């Protein structure tokens, strides 16, 4: 259908870019989720009077453009002489950003567990830790997992921004090809298709989970 100068090598180049996208996403989501769960539990079990500094910082991470955050952290690590590679910087920034989003997911999920359920658990003589692991966690997981999937996909898409630090991920790889081959529409369509193929099935899975779990309640 398309008469293109794009070769298999070029496609491999894009797929390697997609690999970088996935790799950065995986690291950021792994780190961000761990942090986010900790923050989320803190935020939902301690009084807001104590946790407001944390809440404030997380709010900033959610209200300042990712691009600005990337540039800021990158220049700060240079100033501080940490010598981070753009890859490290990207992973750190995206992980913190993910943590901010996951914190909200966790908080929402924990709040969705009715207080009466928890009180019932405690009155059965469960300790705080037992209550958290046996009652709150399984219930919150059902509420939180679909949102967490959305966060993960969001981070995957937002990771395109790391091209600004010179990392050749999927979108940057496509841009390089566009410059060389002068077929912007075709190459971008391929890039879009790759993003779509990664994101769409997972998004669908999330929707299905959400629907199924909601019906069971």
């Amino acid at each position: 259908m398309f008469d293109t100068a794009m070769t298999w090598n070029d496609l491999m180049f894009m797929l390697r870019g997609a690999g970088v996208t996935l790799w950065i996403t995986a690291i950021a989501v792994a780190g961000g989720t761990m942090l986010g769960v900790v923050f989320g539990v803190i935020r939902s079990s301690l009084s807001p009077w104590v946790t407001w500094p944390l809440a404030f910082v997380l709010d900033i991470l959610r209200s300042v453009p990712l691009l600005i955050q990337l540039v800021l952290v990158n220049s700060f690590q240079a100033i501080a002489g940490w010598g981070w590679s753009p890859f490290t910087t990207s992973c750190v920034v995206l992980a913190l950003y993910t943590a901010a989003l996951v914190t909200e997911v966790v908080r929402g999920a924990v709040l969705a567990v009715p207080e009466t359920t928890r009180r019932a658990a405690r009155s059965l003589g469960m300790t705080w830790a037992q209550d958290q692991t046996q009652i709150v966690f399984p219930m919150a997981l059902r509420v939180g997992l679909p949102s967490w999937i959305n966060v993960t996909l969001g981070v995957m898409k937002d990771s395109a921004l790391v091209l600004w630090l010179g990392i050749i991920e999927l979108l940057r790889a496509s841009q390089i090809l566009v410059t060389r081959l002068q077929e912007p529409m075709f190459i971008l369509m391929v890039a879009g298709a790759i993003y779509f193929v990664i994101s769409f099935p997972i998004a669908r899975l999330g929707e299905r989970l959400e629907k199924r779990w909601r019906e069971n309640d």
Partner: protein
Amino acid sequence: MFDFSYRFQWAQAMRHLPRMLEGALVTLEIAILSLVVGIAIAVLLAVARDSKYIWLRAPATAWVEVARNTPALFQIYMAHFGLGSFGIYLSPYTALLAGIAFNNAGYLAETFRGALRAIPETQTRAGRSLGMGQAQTFRLIVMPQMFRVAFLPTTNQMVWAILMTSLGVTVGMATDLTGIVQNLNARTFRTFELFAIAAVLYYLIAKTVMLGAQLIAWRLFRY
């Protein structure tokens, strides 16, 4: 751990604040325009997605799924570089606006669709039985209620639109907040200071918008 040979020069960076504030206005302008356009298209998409005609449903579904399953930056690239294949060359401003509006429309369409389902069919029946036409009933009875249900998610989308405007710099946008800061940065190399101020401004814009939205909601939704 912090071995600073670098001297922060905040005063020097602050001298550029007026320029940056001008940029902030452009940022806000693009965000608002993209939201207005996005809302208008999203209403059409939301209706089309539940239409009984496949030729309406299919393109609407495609729009929504592409908007939600590809990066916003990709969508802006499509507007800026992609359309070049058809001899259409959009300025950075237009491409940015188009890209964000496309994204807004896709996400809001789903929001609106959910809201529409929350409005009972009997409301439409009541409107129709008073002699109102289908379009009239939708516009006067269904849509106002839909906007109320969808108000909070729409506010969130507005904040995302603000964040997305910063992507314009990657297609050569020079007049919005990020664009201006990037240009100043290229001349003065006070990267950290300039972007830190920009971060504060973005934060303030986002908070102001949230506050404004609450005021609007309070004025609008008395019932």
